[in-house]
C-alpha cells in the first residue's frame, strides 16, 4: 500500500509538472464555461419569453434539458482531452527510459500500472466535476434559481464519469502499447475520430435503416422508440454497444427525459437500454479496457 502511495504521489507530481497540464485544465475550464454560458443563456431566454405559462416543474424540466445539452456539448471534447492525457502516461516514461529503469528494481510491476490508472481516474473525476460546477454557476450567474437538486446533479455526472473512465482506460491501453509519446497521441486522436464517427454513423444510420424498414409496412405512421429498438440493425447496435459514447443515454434516464408526461414539448428521447444496463455496460467497458491495458503492460519488456 505504501509502495502504491509512493508511486501515485510521484505520478501526480509528474502530471502536474508536465507543461501540457495547465493547458488541459484551462481547456476543461474554458470548455465548461462556454457550454455553461450557452446552457444558461438558453434557459434564461426560455424563462424570459416562455411559450406558455410555466410551472416550477416546467422550469425544472427545462433546466434538465439544458443540462443534457450541456453534457452533450462537453463530453466529446473531454473524450479527446482525456484520451490524449492518458495516452501519454506510460508512453512518456517508456520513451525516456524511466519505466525500464524502475522495472529493473524488480518490484511489483502491477502497482506501477494501478498507480497510473488511479491518477488518470482522478483526472477523469476532475474533468467531470469542473463542468458540473460550471453549469450550476452558469445558471446562478444568469440570475436564475437553480432547480436541480445537488443529488440529481451528482447523479447526472455519473454517466459522463463512466465515459471518461472508459476513454481514460483506452488511453492507458494505447499508452501501454506505444513506445513513443507522439505515436501514442496520434493513435489517441485516431481513436477519438473513430469513437465519435462510429457513434454518429451507427446511431443515425441505424435509425434510418429502422425507419425505412418500418415505413415499408406502416405508411403515414410515426415510428415509436420501441419499434426503432426492435428494427435497429444488429451490426450497428453492436457498434454502439462497443462505443463509450453510448453511455450518454444513461443521462436521459437519470434526468428522466426518456418520455412520459411533458408539457413543454414532445420529448421521448431514444435509448436502447435502461439505466442499470447502461451503468453495467460502462463499468464492464472501463474494467475490460483496464484489464487489457494491464495485460499489455505486464508483458512489457518480457520475452
Amino acid at each position, binding site marked *: 500500500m505504501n*509502495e502504491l502511495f509512493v*508511486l501515485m504521489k510521484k505520478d501526480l507530481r509528474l502530471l502536474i*509538472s508536465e507543461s501540457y497540464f495547465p493547458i488541459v485544465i484551462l481547456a476543461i475550464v474554458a470548455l465548461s464555461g462556454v457550454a455553461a454560458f450557452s446552457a444558461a443563456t438558453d434557459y434564461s431566454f426560455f424563462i424570459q419569453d416562455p411559450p406558455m405559462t410555466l410551472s416550477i416543474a416546467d422550469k425544472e424540466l427545462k433546466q434538465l434539458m439544458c443540462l443534457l445539452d450541456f453534457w452533450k456539448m462537453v463530453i466529446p471534447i473531454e473524450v479527446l482531452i482525456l484520451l490524449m492525457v492518458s495516452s501519454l502516461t506510460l508512453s512518456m516514461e517508456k520513451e525516456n527510459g*524511466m519505466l*525500464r529503469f524502475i522495472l*529493473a*528494481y524488480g518490484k511489483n510491476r502491477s502497482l506501477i500500472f494501478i498507480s497510473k490508472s488511479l491518477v488518470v481516474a482522478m483526472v477523469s473525476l476532475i474533468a467531470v466535476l469542473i463542468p458540473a460546477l460550471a453549469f450550476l454557476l452558469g445558471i446562478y450567474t444568469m440570475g436564475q434559481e437553480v432547480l436541480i437538486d445537488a443529488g440529481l446533479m451528482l447523479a447526472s455526472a455519473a454517466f459522463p464519469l463512466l465515459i471518461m473512465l472508459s476513454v481514460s482506460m483506452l488511453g492507458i491501453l494505447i499508452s501501454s502499447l506505444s513506445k513513443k509519446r507522439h505515436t501514442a497521441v496520434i493513435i489517441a486522436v485516431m481513436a477519438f475520430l473513430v469513437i465519435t464517427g462510429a457513434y454518429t454513423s451507427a446511431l443515425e444510420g441505424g435509425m434510418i435503416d429502422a425507419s425505412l424498414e418500418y415505413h415499408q409496412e406502416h405508411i403515414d405512421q410515426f415510428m415509436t422508440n420501441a419499434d426503432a429498438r426492435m428494427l435497429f440493425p444488429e451490426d450497428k447496435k453492436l457498434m454502439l454497444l462497443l462505443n463509450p459514447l453510448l453511455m450518454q443515454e444513461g443521462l436521459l434516464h437519470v434526468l428522466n427525459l426518456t418520455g412520459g408526461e411533458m408539457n413543454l414539448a414532445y420529448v421521448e428521447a431514444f435509448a436502447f437500454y435502461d439505466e442499470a444496463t447502461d451503468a453495467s455496460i460502462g463499468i464492464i467497458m472501463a474494467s475490460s479496457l483496464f484489464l487489457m491495458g494491464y495485460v499489455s503492460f505486464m508483458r512489457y519488456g518480457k520475452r
Partner: protein
Amino acid sequence: MNEEGAMVISVTDVSKTFGGLISKKIRALDGVSFSLERGEVCGLVGPNGAGKSTLISIIMGAEARDQGKVTVKSDKPVGFVPDRPMFYEDLTAMENLMFFAQYNKVDAPMESCTKLLTEFGLGGRGDEPVRNYSKGMKQRLAIARALLHGPDILVMDEPFTGLDPTMVIELRDSIKRLKGSGLTILLSSHDLHEVNNICDSVVFIKAGKVVNKESVAECHRTMDVQFTILNPTPSILSCLDGYAVIDRSDDGHTIVVKMEKDEVQARLSELVKAGGLVQEVRLLERSVEDLYSELIMEDGR
C-alpha cells in the same frame, strides 16, 4: 571460498540474438561466462557492438537472454547507473531521489538523500529541476540514486562517456571511495586508462564472446622488459630463452621480452655473468591497454 571471496555475480553460457523474422539476425552474446567476487571492481571492456550493454541489460534483468544462466546474490536490488542518465527531468534532484528512497523503503529517506547529494557535490542544487543539470551532474546524481538503497552490487554502463576531464576525475574519485566500502562494482567503459586505475579485474569482450578475464594486479606484475645488449651473441641471448619476445630491433642489439617484475634482477645478473655488455634495461609496465591490444585488436598495436 571465504566470505570475502564469495561469488556475487555469476554469468554462465549466456547467449542473446537480436532480429530474425524481418531484420538480419545479430548474435549479440555468444556463450558468455564469467563471475565476480564480493568486493571486486571489474571493468567490462570491448569495442563498440561487442555486447557490453546487452550483457549489462541481461544482468539487470531488463533484457531476456536466449540461453544461459545469470545468478546475482544480493538481498537488495542491484544499484544501476545506465549509460544515459535518465531521470524525471521536470522534478527536482531531491524529488527524484526521494521517490527512489521511498520506493525502496530506505530508512530516514530525507536524511539519506541529503547526505548523498552533499557527498556527490550536489548539495546546494538539490531543489533544481534535473533538466537544468549538466551531464556530469546528472551522472553524479545517477550514482547517488543507485547507492540510495545501500546496494551490495553496483552496475555502471559507460559512466565516463561524455564527461569533461574535471568530471572524469570527480567520478573516478567517487568510484574509488566506493571501492573502499566493499561494494562489488561492474562497470563497462571505453576508457582503458580509467579501468586500469580503478578496477581489480577486467573482462575483455569481443564479438559477443568473453576473450579473457584478467586481474589488473596480475597484468601489472608482468611487464615488458627492454634489454639493450652490445654483444648479442646466441650464447648470451640464451639467458632469455623461455620468455615471450615482444619485439627485437633489426641490428639485434635491442630485445623486448615479457617477464614478471621479480625476475628482472636475476635475468640481468645472468646476462652479465654470461659476458653480456648490457647497455640499458628499461622496464615497460604493462597496462589494461596493452592487454586490450593483445586480446582485442587482431593486429596488435
